[in-house]
C-alpha cells in the first residue's frame, strides 16, 4: 500500500500522545487497531501529516466490572478480547452477541472497541451497541478528562464530538438495575462484511418485567441510528407478543435505509423489524432468574 507521506510517532503515555495531538493542530490521527485507519490511508481517503500510534501505551487493555456492575472497556481492548471474555458473555449479552459478528477473526485480533466507536462508521457494530446500552466515552485532553454520553458522541458518518487534541480513554457501560439481557443480530453477505442491517437490543430485566431497554441500528442510515425511544413500548411490561410487536414497529420506523445493491429500503426495514422481534422473543422465552 502506498499512502501519502506521514510522520509516525509512538508515545508511551497518554499525556505524550495528547501533546502530539495538540501540536498536530488537527493534522495528527490516532492509530489504535488500524483496521479502519489503515484502509483509509491506503485509499488516500485519509492523509494525516502525523500518525500517533497508541499501541505502546501500557495499561489501556482492561475489561473491568465495578462492584455495582458498571463496565469499563479500555481503549486498547480488541474485539477478540470481548468475544472471548467469560465475564462479558455472562454479564453483557448484547456485547457478547455482537463481538463474533464484527468483521472477521483476523480483523478482530487487531481492531479495538473504542476505536470502532470513535470511527463512527454508520455500518459499525460497536457504536450501535453502545447507544443501545446507553454507554458513554471518557476522553482525555490537555485540560483533563470529560465524559461524553453516547447520544452526544456520534455526530454523523465518521464524525464524533471529540476535539482534535483528545483521546478516548475508555468506554463505560452502566450497570443494569436487574439483569442485563438482549442480543445482537446482523445481516451480512459474508463473514467480514459490514452490516446490510444490524440490530442491537439491550434489556434490563427484573424477573420478567422490563425495567430498561435500548435499541440502535447500523447499516440502515447515514449514521448509527438511535432507536431508544422504542423502550417506551416495553418499560414496566412483560415481553409479550403485543409489546414485542409494538417495540419492533417503533424501531423499524426509526430506520432510514436506502435502496442499493444490498436490497431495497423496504427489505432492510423488514429485516430490522424481524431482528428486533427475534431478539425479544428469544429473551422472553429465556428462563428469568
Amino acid at each position: 500500500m502506498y499512502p501519502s507521506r506521514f510522520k509516525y510517532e509512538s508515545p508511551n503515555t497518554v499525556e505524550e500522545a495528547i501533546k502530539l495531538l495538540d501540536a498536530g493542530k488537527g493534522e495528527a490521527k490516532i492509530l489504535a487497531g488500524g483496521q479502519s485507519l489503515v484502509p483509509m490511508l491506503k485509499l488516500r481517503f485519509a492523509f494525516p501529516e502525523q500518525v500517533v500510534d497508541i499501541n505502546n501505551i501500557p495499561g489501556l487493555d482492561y475489561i473491568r466490572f465495578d462492584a455495582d456492575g458498571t463496565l469499563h472497556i479500555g481503549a486498547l481492548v480488541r474485539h477478540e478480547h470481548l468475544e472471548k471474555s467469560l465475564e462479558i458473555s455472562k454479564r453483557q449479552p448484547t456485547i457478547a452477541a455482537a463481538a463474533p459478528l464484527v468483521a472477521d477473526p483476523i480483523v478482530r485480533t487487531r481492531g479495538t472497541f473504542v476505536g470502532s466507536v470513535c470511527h463512527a462508521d454508520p455500518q459499525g457494530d460497536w457504536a450501535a451497541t453502545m447507544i443501545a446500552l446507553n454507554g458513554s466515552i471518557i476522553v482525555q485532553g490537555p485540560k483533563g478528562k470529560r465524559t461524553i454520553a453516547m447520544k452526544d458522541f456520534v455526530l454523523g458518518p465518521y464524525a464524533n464530538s471529540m476535539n482534535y487534541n483528545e483521546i478516548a480513554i475508555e468506554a463505560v457501560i452502566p450497570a443494569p438495575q436487574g439483569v442485563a439481557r438482549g442480543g445482537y443480530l446482523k445481516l451480512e453477505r459474508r463473514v467480514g462484511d459490514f452490516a446490510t442491517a444490524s440490530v442491537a437490543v439491550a434489556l434490563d430485566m427484573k424477573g420478567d418485567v422490563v425495567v430498561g431497554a435500548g435499541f440502535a441500528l447500523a447499516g440502515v442510515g447515514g449514521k448509527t441510528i438511535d432507536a431508544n425511544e422504542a423502550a417506551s413500548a416495553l418499560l414496566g411490561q412483560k415481553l409479550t407478543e403485543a409489546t414485542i410487536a409494538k417495540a419492533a414497529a417503533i424501531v423499524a420506523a426509526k430506520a432510514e435505509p436506502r435502496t442499493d445493491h444490498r436490497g431495497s429500503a423496504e427489505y432492510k426495514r423488514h429485516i430490522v423489524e424481524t431482528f428486533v422481534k427475534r431478539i425479544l422473543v428469544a429473551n422472553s422465552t429465556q428462563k428469568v432468574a
Partner: protein
Amino acid sequence: MKLDEVKIGGMGASRRRVEDNRFIRGKGNYVDDIVLPGMLHMEILRSPVAHARIKSIDTSAAWDMPGVRLVLTGEMMAARNLAWMPTLSYDTQAVLATDKVRFQGQEVCAVIADDPYIAKDACGKIVVDYEILPPIVNPVQAADANAIQIRDDKAGQVGNKVFDWEIGDKARTDKAFADADVVSKIELHYPRTHPSPMETCGSIADYDRATGKLTVYMTSQAPHIVRAAVAMVAELPEQNIRIVTPDIGGGFGNKVPIYPGYVVAILASILTEKPVKWIEDKTGNLISTGFGRDVYLKGEMALRKDGKILGVRMNTISDHGAFFSDAQPSKFKIGLMHSAFACYDIPTAHMFATGYYTNKAPGGVAYRCSFRVTEAMFFQERMVQAAADDLGMDQAEFRRVNFVKDEQHPHRTAFGFLTDSGQYEKCLDIGLEAINYKNFAAEKAEAAKRGRLLGIGISVMTEPLGAGNSREYDILGIKMFDSAELRIHMSGKALLRTGSRGQGTGHETTWAQIVAHELGIPADDILVEEGDTDTAPFGMGTYASRSTPVAGAAIAMVARKVRAKARKLAAHLLEVSEEDIEWELGRFYVRGNQERGVTIQDCAMAAYSNMPDGMEPGLENVAYYDPPNLTWPFACYIAKVEIDPETGVWDVLQFVAVDDCGVRINPMIVEGQIMGGLTEAYAMANMQYQTYDEEGNIIGGNYMDFLLPTAWETPGFELYEVVTPCPHHPIGAKGVGECATVGGPAAFVNAVMNALTEKGVRNIDMPLMPNRVYEALTTGKDVYGMPPVRSGN
C-alpha cells in the same frame, strides 16, 4: 523386483505438492519479489469516469516532482504507434487513452519514478480535463438506435454491436418447435464476475540497449503468446525477447490477456534504459482487467409430453465492455457456448449470439472455464429444470430420459461437438443416493413444520476441455497445441519443461508423476520447469483446463520417445536385439528371462558413457502434441438448501459432487481443484458479482463489495468419483480444473428455485442474495439482476 508405482510417485499417487514446500515457507518468488538493480516503479493513472472525451492532460506538475523520471500519455504512446494494441479477439484496445476514456478505470497516464510512493503521488498531480459523455452500462442501452457510439475510433463500426453469430440448424429446429407438445422457456442473466487472483497483474520490463535484449518478468498464464505478441506489437526481434513468469499467485483466466500496463512498462524501460516495475493494486485489477460472464441468456426447449427433448433454441446477448478482448479461439465469437446440452440426446438446436460494447471494463476472459462453457452449462441446467417443472416431471427422471447413453459415444451433439465418453446416469445415481433423494419429500415436510423451505437442485453436465485440436482451435491464428521437453541426466535424474504454466495448480508435482508413470523414474528425481520462454518449448499456456489434456499428453509422448531410445541402449547393454527386449515400469529385461535386465537409470548412464557405435549420445527429446479432440469430463452436482422465508437467507445443508475426469494422476490435487471450483461456484450463486450504477461507476471494485467467500460460510462438499478414461488421451486423463466452477452454480440456484417452485417463481438471477430471495418469496415474481441498481450506502 517390480516397482510400486504409487511409491515412486507415479500415476494415482496423492503425492504432496512439491511447490508447497516453498509456498508455505514464504519462499515463493512472485513478480513483486523480484528486485533488479536500478529498477524504477510505474503507477497508472486511471479514468475516474466511465465515458468522456479527453479535452486536455496537464502533466507538468508531475514532471516537476523530484524522483519522477518519465510521465507517459496516450499522445506520447501514439507518437510511437503504441497508443492502441490488438486484443486476442481481433479488436483493438487503448493502451493509454488518447481521444476518449471508455470505462471507469481505463488507463490514462503512467508515471515512472524512483519509488512507488513518488509515482503514486505524481499521478495525483496530473490534471485531466474530461468532457463527460453519457455512459452505456448494459446491452439494452447499447442496442438503442439513438445510443452514443462508444467505439467511434473504429472505421466501419456501426452502432455498438460487436458481432452477430449463429450456429446450429435453424430450419430443423423451427420444425421441432412446430411439432412440440410443450414449449418451455427461460430467461436469465449470468452476472459479471471477476477471477480476482490473490496476486494482481504486474511485470518488470528490462530492456538492455547494449545487447538489444528485452526481458519481461510477468504474471502470465501464457508466456509464449506474450512473446509472440510483443514481437508483433513492439516490432522487436523474437529471439531478443524473453518472457519469464515466476510463481503465479493464481490466474483463473485473468492472466491470459495482454494488458496496457505491460506495454507501457516495456516502452518505459526502452526509454529510460532501466528496469521498470509495474504492480497493479487490487482495485486496478478488479476494475480494469479481464472479467468473466456478463451474458443475458434466453432460450426455449421443444418437448414431447413423455419428456423427450425435441429441440433447443438459445439466444445470448453478451456485454464485452469497451474493447472486445475475450480470450478465446478465434473461430467462435461467444466461446464454446454451443457446448450446452452436450450430455443430452437432442436432435436439433440453434443458437443466435450478439455481442455489444458498453462503457465497462473489457474482458470476457474464460474465468475458470473453457471459454463461456460456464454460462452454457448454467443455462443448460436452468433450462432443464424449467422444462421438468413445466412437464410436471421429476427433475432427476427428466434428465435420465434425455441423457446420451454410455454406449452412444462417441456422440455428435446437436451443435456439432463430438463427445468421447460419458456415464451420466451413473454419476446421477451416485449423487442421488448420497443426498438421499428418496427421502427428500419427508425432509421437506419436516422443515416446513419449522417454518423453513427446503429445496434440492441438480446439475449434470459434460464440458469440452483442452483446446485444440489445431484444425478448429487457434488464438490469433496460432494453433492450440502444446509441448514438452525431457532431458534425462546421466544419473537417471531428469529435467522436464513444458509450454504450459502452472499457477498454483500443481504442475511441478503432477507432471513429474506422468514421467514417473511412463519411465519408472521416481517423481522426486524429476525437476519440472516452466514459464521461461528462453528455455521452455513453445506452448499456448495454461487456461481452459488445457494443461493435462494437451501438455500432459505431450509429456507422456516425450517420455515414450525417450523410452524408445532407452530401449536401444538397453539392447546394447544386454547384448540382445531390440525385439527381444521387454519393458516393465522402470526396467527393460530380456524376453523369457526376467532376471536379466537393466534399469532406466542404467540406460541413462549408458547414453553418456557407453552408447553403441553410431548412436547419437544423450537421452532427451521434445514432443509437440496436437490433440485429436477436446476431452470431455462430466459431473453431477447436487445441493440441498434450506431457506429462512422471513429473511431470504439460505444455507446449504448438503452438497454432493460426483466427478469423472478420467484417470486421476494425483487424486489429492484433483480433489483440491474440485473443492476450489465449488467454492467459486458457491460465491457466484450466493454473493459475488460486479455491477455498475447508471453513471458507470463500478460496484465491486474492492473487496468490501466484491465478495470472496471465506472458510466460514463456504459449505462442506462431499466428493465422489467415477473414472471413465478418455479414449484418445495417451494416459486417459481429462481436464478437471474447471468442472466444478462450471457445473456448480446451477446446482445451488436450482436448489433455491426448487424450494420456491410452489410460489410460482421460476428465476432469480445470481447472486441469490437474501433480498432477492425474499422479494421472490413475497411477490411470487421472478427477480432479475439487471438493469443496474444504485450504488451503496
